[in-house]
């Protein structure tokens, strides 16, 4: 594999990872809203959210591995694990390392959800809202193609899509059909536990 092919693959896999991560965030928002339609049960959204997140990890791995083994930048494996340890574009690459590690934490804790409990999983899952913008900033800051028309267009589309989804999530509120019974149950338990 030539150095240039590695370089192209790094850039392309980074862009694909951004698109996939954007899809994961949007599907996560739809899952939180219990989205369903005719022929589209709610578990389909959740299942697709999980599967696309796993696919994202594969392409994020491709992005990282091809960047590390590229002899031109000579990043080394440490910079892929320890943020801000790279001599090359230290700050921007450090943001990429943080975004990737947050995503790995979110996916791993989702796979181990049964072991860590729902509350801990939920808190960690909110890190996705940090991982995605950090990844976008990493792409704009360190990306060789950041200001190329095609990559800039892709980034703008992703930002618009996630922005719309987050605003919709905030406006729509919780669609949990059991939200009210849960809230009343919690308040009842708290009331009875008071001395």
């Amino acid at each position, binding site marked *: 594999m030539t150095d240039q092919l590695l370089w192209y693959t790094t850039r392309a896999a980074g862009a694909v990872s951004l698109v996939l991560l954007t899809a994961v965030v949007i599907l996560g928002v739809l899952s939180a809203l219990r989205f369903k339609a005719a022929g589209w049960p709610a578990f389909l959204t959740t299942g697709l959210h999980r*599967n696309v997140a796993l696919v994202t990890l594969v392409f994020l791995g491709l992005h990282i591995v091809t960047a590390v083994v590229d002899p031109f930048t000579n990043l080394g494996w440490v910079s892929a694990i320890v943020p801000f340890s790279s001599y090359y574009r230290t700050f921007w690459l450090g943001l990429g390392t943080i975004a990737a590690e947050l995503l790995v934490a979110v996916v791993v804790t989702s796979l181990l959800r049964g072991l860590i409990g729902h509350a801990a999983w939920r808190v960690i899952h909110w890190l996705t809202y940090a991982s995605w913008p950090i990844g976008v900033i990493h792409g704009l800051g360190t990306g060789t*193609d950041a200001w190329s028309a*095609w990559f800039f267009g892709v980034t703008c589309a992703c930002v618009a899509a996630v922005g719309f989804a987050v605003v919709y999530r905030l406006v729509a509120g919780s669609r949990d059909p059991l939200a009210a019974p849960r809230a009343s149950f919690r308040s009842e338990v708290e009331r009875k536990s008071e001395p």
Partner: protein
Amino acid sequence: MTRMNHLEEVQSMISARGRAQRLLNTLTAGVAVAAVAGVGAFGYLSAATLPGATSLSTSTISTTSSSGTTSSSSSFGLSSSSGTVRSSSGSGVAVSGGS
């Protein structure tokens, strides 16, 4: 609701879930294939917009004297320029003497 109707409803729910599961598998495979194609497409765009190649070929420079144009171009694709060369005319001055 009769027992028969209840069984039909359960069967319907099971088949709907099976259809949704197959749709999930198809969509996941589609996303994976699209992502692979995306790497190819974005890689092509990356190579087209910023190849990172440093090949050098001969540059051409052409100049016309008097009142004409001069132009130059290079294979870097970085710049090409052209401009007008203007000539001046006037009476010559002869210098003589001196030591």
